[in-house]
């Protein structure tokens, strides 16, 4: 029996059972959703071993052969994204056991949460273009609802803005898929790649690519399309902010963009320049907007834009080292950014405020949160030996090697500004004089501490991933192979 359908089936079944039984049995949603995410995490780690050495697994849905039927494809890149998504999902889920007690109707939260995971896993694992759109919408609709979960003024406004912009992006993606279908008469991604190789790229490809860049770029919050992110991410409950910033913008945006551009259409010189430019501009604009923020979660949201810029810059360079750096940074960012968002949630849980000017000296009252936040801040700012340092270093070296000195300079500059803004967070938020109002606050409950400590350990040990290549290099090789993807998948079908 193949494990491929399980990545979608487990969270969908979990969401179904949670919504069915959650109202009746109080403790059940916690146990059920944690079981789901834990088992997803285990099978996604197992999947790394299955794609070792560049092998590709294809699962035919309903037994129909691929160009006709829908297929699920597992290769190095998918497996890499699955591990990232499910690892963060598990830790966020452990965190929300305690955190979500602040809200009513915990079971509704878990239902939407599991649906979002099902959508993200589906986007990552599917081999069919229209199927990708469907899963993308499942994840997106669940995330619109989750952003509005608090149903207060800000949440509703942010969610409305996010929903409108997100659906426009989805329409553009669908439009791109329609034109691609009209040109190639097939929806299977491998088959589209094959037809495009045979037919040669027509003029219509030049029309399709901007649509995909706009659509997926909006989902990934690259800079000209970033306006929804700083509203939507802070408005959501902290665990959801961690999921949105940590993995949703990556699996819906960066993964889908890279998969289609690199493996289906094929990246040329000019497209690579566009990606690098978008990456660099998001990197710099994001960090400049972040420095001036006083709302902790809003500051973190702007940093997400900036760090996504690094990922796109690294992947856009197109050299093996650049892609490796970009993917490594993608993994690292999902770890430290979810840690930072969870910590901002812990601070809000204990003190009830997100305004940095009202905080101060929290590290003495909340030692675990203070320490893990210090680790995450140093990771995101790129201080050795934390994981963020290694990935930024690789991206900068790759940019220099490719002769892109300007981009390397901007990457260094953005890194310095990131350091400055996180020094502000640590100084005003966690060190300095304790605000009198917070004399009685306590450290957060057990499960919240457990999950942030695990994330902090991954932050410290993350650099070791570079020593053992299979995890990252499997993903890199898929992107490097480019349009050979079609041949690889079609061979694996037989």
């Amino acid at each position, binding site marked *: 029996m193949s494990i491929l359908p399980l990545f979608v089936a487990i969270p969908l079944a979990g969401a179904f059972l949670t919504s069915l039984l959650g109202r009746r049995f109080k403790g059940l949603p916690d146990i059920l959703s944690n079981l789901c995410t834990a088992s997803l995490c285990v099978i996604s780690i197992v999947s790394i071993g299955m794609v070792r050495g560049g092998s590709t697994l294809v699962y035919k849905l309903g037994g129909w052969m691929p160009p006709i039927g829908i297929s699920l494809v597992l290769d190095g890149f998918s497996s890499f994204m699955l591990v990232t998504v499910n690892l963060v999902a598990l830790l966020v889920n452990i965190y929300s056991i305690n955190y979500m007690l602040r809200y009513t109707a915990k079971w509704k939260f878990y239902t939407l949460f599991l649906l979002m995971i099902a959508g993200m896993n589906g986007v990552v694992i599917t081999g069919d273009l*229209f199927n990708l*759109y*469907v899963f993308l*919408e499942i994840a997106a*609709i669940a995330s*619109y*609802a989750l952003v*509005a979960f608090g*149903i*207060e*003024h*800000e949440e*509703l*406004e*942010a*969610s*409305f803005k996010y*929903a*409108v912009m997100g*659906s*426009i992006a*989805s*329409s553009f993606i*669908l*439009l791109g898929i*329609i034109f691609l*279908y*009209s040109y190639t008469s097939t*929806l299977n991604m491998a088959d589209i790649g094959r037809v495009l190789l045979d037919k040669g790229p027509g003029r219509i490809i030049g029309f399709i690519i901007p649509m995909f860049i706009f659509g997926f770029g909006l989902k990934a919050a690259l800079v000209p399309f970033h*306006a929804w992110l*700083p*509203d939507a991410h802070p*408005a959501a409950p902290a665990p959801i902010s961690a999921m949105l910033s940590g993995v949703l913008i990556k699996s819906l945006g960066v993964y889908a963009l890279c998969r289609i551009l690199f493996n289906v259409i094929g990246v040329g010189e000019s497209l690579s320049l566009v990606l690098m430019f978008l990456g660099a501009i998001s990197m710099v604009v994001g960090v400049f*907007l972040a420095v001036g923020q006083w709302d902790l979660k809003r500051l973190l949201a702007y940093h997400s834009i900036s760090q996504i810029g690094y990922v796109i810059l690294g992947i856009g360079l197109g050299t093996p080292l650049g892609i490796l750096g970009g993917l490594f940074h993608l993994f690292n960012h999902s770890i430290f950014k979810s840690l930072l968002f969870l910590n901002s949630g812990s601070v809000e849980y204990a003190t009830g405020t997100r305004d940095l000017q009202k905080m101060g000296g929290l590290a003495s009252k909340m030692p675990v949160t203070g320490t893990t936040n210090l680790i995450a801040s140093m990771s995101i700012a790129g201080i050795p030996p934390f994981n963020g340092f290694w990935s930024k270093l690789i991206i900068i070296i790759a940019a220099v090697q490719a002769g892109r000195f300007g981009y390397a300079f901007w990457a260094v500059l953005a890194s310095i500004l990131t350091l400055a803004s996180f020094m502000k967070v640590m100084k005003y938020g966690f060190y300095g004089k304790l605000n009198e109002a917070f004399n009685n606050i306590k450290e957060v409950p057990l499960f919240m501490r457990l999950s942030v400590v695990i994330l902090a350990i991954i932050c410290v040990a993350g650099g070791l991933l570079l020593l053992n290549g299979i995890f990252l290099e499997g993903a890199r090789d898929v992107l490097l192979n480019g349009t050979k993807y079609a041949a690889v998948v079609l061979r694996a079908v037989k």
Partner: protein
Amino acid sequence: MIYFLCMVLFAIGLYGVLRKRNLVKIILGLVIIEYATHLLFILIGYRMNGRAPILAEGEVIANIVDPLPQALVLTAIVISLGVTALVVSLAIRIYDRYRTFDITKIRRLRG
């Protein structure tokens, strides 16, 4: 030509979303965008004077309508129904809180 008209419809929807100040009108713009996309999808599968794609014994079929876009559009319509329902319910909740549909008055968030 007819594809071009679809793109015009799409552009009208986009204009509605970007320029209108009323939440309901923004939602209508969104719906128009989705309709334009679905219409384009159906038209791409359509053949002039084509017939329904039903295979029958001993019959040569020369000119049939492509059935795949029709099946896909059904899925897309269901998805856009879900999005529209969600957005409308958000708009109702927003009206409960702010007592207005005017987005220039709904400005708790900066930037």
